[in-house]
């Protein structure tokens, strides 16, 4: 069906499904104003907030700015003790004395020193003790993985400077491997990831905030990198003059012991949550969750990463939505606005909440709309996931597609490649609710210090906000057939 035909069919259906007497949202739509959205973004993306890293003082200031808005508009607190849902991150520091890898054969065990013989980044610091056979996988291309049984074994892959690492990594993980060990390119000069070794040593020693380490140890796929000298020792131990065919299991096993210092400090971080109670006694305990992450990546020696689009745009869209609903009054179902932190560190805020949600007694979340980066690129360009091609395609996407045209988005593009890349993924994964992700795609300033307010299309954010409000209106039917 063409979009306009779809719209023509659906609009009366949607209109009929909403009972008479439910107030029109026209007044609320008018309240969503591009100039006021811009004023909010100037604060959220200001240098003074220093890029809103998780955790950071700038992030806390942003949270308090959002809270002030919810208080002023008389939104209900959406967390146990107020407007902040607090969760802990751990600034995981490596216990180097208890972190050691070994190359193991029946006759020999060669210990490797972390930070010089082998290394991994702070994202891969966890408690772990795994020994498994090494299987050489060449450069880790598609063909290399065919017909190879990697279940419980460690893939040994040659890293090439110009080949993206995630291809081989994903293939190895999907094939059931226990892990992946990177070897430097024998034809290259440098250590693999050479310039990052110092950075990784630093951040593992200093501590990098992340999901608290499981003291018992995590049984999950992870990777590490070997130095050139280590690779040479490996081949010697394996008794090989040169690398074998891809798919060959070596006589050398890899022992991978990683240890997080149990004294690593914890830091409290906040999601900001506001509730707009529903008016229908039958439906008020069903919660429509609208989310956006309000953190970004802080600063580096290249400057402050203001994150105007990522995700200042989503943050201020939710602020405008709060204002619109305050103007409108209650919807039939309860709405929760949630600004999550830690997204840039691995969807940590949405993960924390979805694993241990706080809602009023007896309430349950029924769906999620997540907004991340909606202020750039062509005015009529907006992507959505899950698309009709995705296994999780649901009524929320259909709703967005049908209403998009009313706000200048005649067609919604496919964002399936980003299905796991923002917070909606956590809500679906951990709570099993239908989700919808609105996103207007990356651009050349993505994760650069140049993602700044002057480049933002405020009218676009206004229209996306209006679209979400229309979707909320569409979610007022007696039965949600998502």
């Amino acid at each position, binding site marked *: 069906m063409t979009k306009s035909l779809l719209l023509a069919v659906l609009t009366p259906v949607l209109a009929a499904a909403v009972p008479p007497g439910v107030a029109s949202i026209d007044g609320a739509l008018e309240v969503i104003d591009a100039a006021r959205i811009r004023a909010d973004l*100037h*604060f959220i993306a*200001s240098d*003074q907030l220093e890029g809103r890293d998780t955790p950071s*003082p700038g992030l806390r200031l942003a949270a308090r700015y959002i809270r*002030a*808005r919810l*208080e*002023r508009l008389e939104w209900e607190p959406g967390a146990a003790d107020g407007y902040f849902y607090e969760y802990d991150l751990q600034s995981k520091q490596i216990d180097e004395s208890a972190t050691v890898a070994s190359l193991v054969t029946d006759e020999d065990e060669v210990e490797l020193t972390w930070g010089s013989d082998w290394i991994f980044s702070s994202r891969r610091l966890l408690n772990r003790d795994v020994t498994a056979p090494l299987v050489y996988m060449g450069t880790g291309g598609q063909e290399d993985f065919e017909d190879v049984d990697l279940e419980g074994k460690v893939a040994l892959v040659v890293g090439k400077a110009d080949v993206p690492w995630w291809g081989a990594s994903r293939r190895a993980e999907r094939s059931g491997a226990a892990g992946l060990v990177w070897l430097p390119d024998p034809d290259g000069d440098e250590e693999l990831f050479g310039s990052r070794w110092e950075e990784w040593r630093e951040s593992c020693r200093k501590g990098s905030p992340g999901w608290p380490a499981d003291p018992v140890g995590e049984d999950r796929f992870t990777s590490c990198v070997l130095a050139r000298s280590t690779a040479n020792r490996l081949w010697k131990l394996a008794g090989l003059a040169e690398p074998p065919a891809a798919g060959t299991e070596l006589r050398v096993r890899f022992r991978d012991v990683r240890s997080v210092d149990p004294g690593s400090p914890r830091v409290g971080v906040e999601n900001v949550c506001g509730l707009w109670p529903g008016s229908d006694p039958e439906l008020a305990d069903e919660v429509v969750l609208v989310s956006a992450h309000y953190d970004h990546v802080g600063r580096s020696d290249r400057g402050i990463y203001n994150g105007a689009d990522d995700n200042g745009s989503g943050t201020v869209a939710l602020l405008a939505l709060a204002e619109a609903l305050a103007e409108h009054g209650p919807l039939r179902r309860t709405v929760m606005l949630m600004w999550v932190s830690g997204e840039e560190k691995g969807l940590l805020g949405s993960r924390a909440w979805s694993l241990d949600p706080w809602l009023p007694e007896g309430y349950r979340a029924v769906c999620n709309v997540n907004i991340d980066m909606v202020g750039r690129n062509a005015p009529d360009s907006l992507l959505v996931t899950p698309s009709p091609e995705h296994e999780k395609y649901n009524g929320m996407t259909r709703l967005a597609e049908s209403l998009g045209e009313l706000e200048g988005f005649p067609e919604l593009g496919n964002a399936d490649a980003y299905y796991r890349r923002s917070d909606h993924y956590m809500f679906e994964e951990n709570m099993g609710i239908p989700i919808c992700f609105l996103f207007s795609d990356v651009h050349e300033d993505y994760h650069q210090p140049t993602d700044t307010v002057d480049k933002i299309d405020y009218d676009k954010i206004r229209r996306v906000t209006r679209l979400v409000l229309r979707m909320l209106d569409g979610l007022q039917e007696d039965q949600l057939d998502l």
Partner: protein
Amino acid sequence: MRLPALMSPALLTWAALLAPAVAPSSGLPLERALADIRERPICSDVRFLADDALEGRDTPSRGLQVAARYIAARLERIGWEPGVGEGYLQTWSLEHIAVDPDRTSLRLEAETGAAHTLVFGDDYLFSGWEVQDHLAEGPIVFCGEGTREDIDGIDLRGAFALCYDSDLHANSRRNTVRRAGAVGLLVVPNRETGTLLHEDRLRRLALLALTGRVESGEERRPDMGGRAPLFHQAFLTESGARALFDLVGSDLRPGTRLGVVARDERRLPGDGGVVEVENVCALLPGRDPELADEVILVSAHYDHVGIIGGEIHNGADDNASGTASLLALAEALVEFPVRRTVMLLFVSGEEKGLYGSQAWAREPTLPEGSRAICDINLDMVGRNEPGELYVTPSPAHRAYNGLVELATRLAPLEGFAELGSADRYYDRSDHAVFAGMGMPVVFLFNGEHADYHRPSDTTDKIDCDKIRRVSRLVMRMIDALQDDDLGL
């Protein structure tokens, strides 16, 4: 006591009788504006500004900048016009006088080749009032306790005098040594006790050198502006003295040259210690072409005193309350048919010496061709008894004017039966600066309390309803200030 002619006793009687007519109420627009002043937004503004995350809004500080941007965002969203060209922020400069600890040190170089670098704050101290960008270098000459007898006959020209701390008056010791031509004085702990005599005080003054102090760019100290270097006086702590004596023997008699050169380098940060600070300024243009060039100024300082002794001084009453009051007024006024222009001015640097209002007074951000005709200043309006409010200049003050009379007459409508006198505070806040520009001013203030300038001046103690009523009072005053002839 001479009252202004307008307020002669006879006229006062008439004024009282005619009060309902003479204090015009615009009726419906005023009622609507008053209703727009609500407690929740006031409370949420106070809570944000007084949050620990803003670290007490010191001048200068990041928390202060955040507060300025918060206020600007609020004003922009409410719909007030930018008061400074295209924006809401008026920038002015302060000298932030602090040492750059990375480039400040006292180095001791012995003729033997041995050397030691002393760390400021740990090994040696000097006062925050003796911060400068200068290097003094010279051989160290022992001078006993620095008495006139000790110094007599010693050639101290171009040298650092070294003295044991003693009961000898510090200034006297310093002057003696300086007059003898020394470039500096190093004081080591007292020979008997092994300690510096006023170590606590010295450490406090040294902390001031690290944290810095601010001075208005307009008031250059002669020693800074004139660039004449200060005499280099430094106090060595136990560790510093030990390091020094390790380099020399201990056989010291007045006049002994130690064979050690002292290099006392003091540096300011690269920007020369100039910091930029902001006032926030917004305009509501008057709708009457005849009166729009007359500007009613409403002011509040939004800075406080930051972190002292490791504790955040949140400044909820001083002056998040006044700041929030102005923001509530902004909401009320935006729809109100003002005939005269209203300007909201949020100043910083008040706690440091009314610097922000002074900066504005030097370069008022008034629209072309307009002039400020009066100022209403609010500072601390959220504490003490609900009915307790003070005003200055009172009838007893030489600056008493029609604004105060207006406030006094309208106050009972908002639960302030009587306005006490705050004349003691006339010179203590920004209205004094605006008065100095020649305009009538009124200062509203709830009086001091036990939490004044303490870490305990926090949001939970604030009476947001009181701030609401003060805002309503000011709204009524502004309404009354729309009359053709004001006669203030």
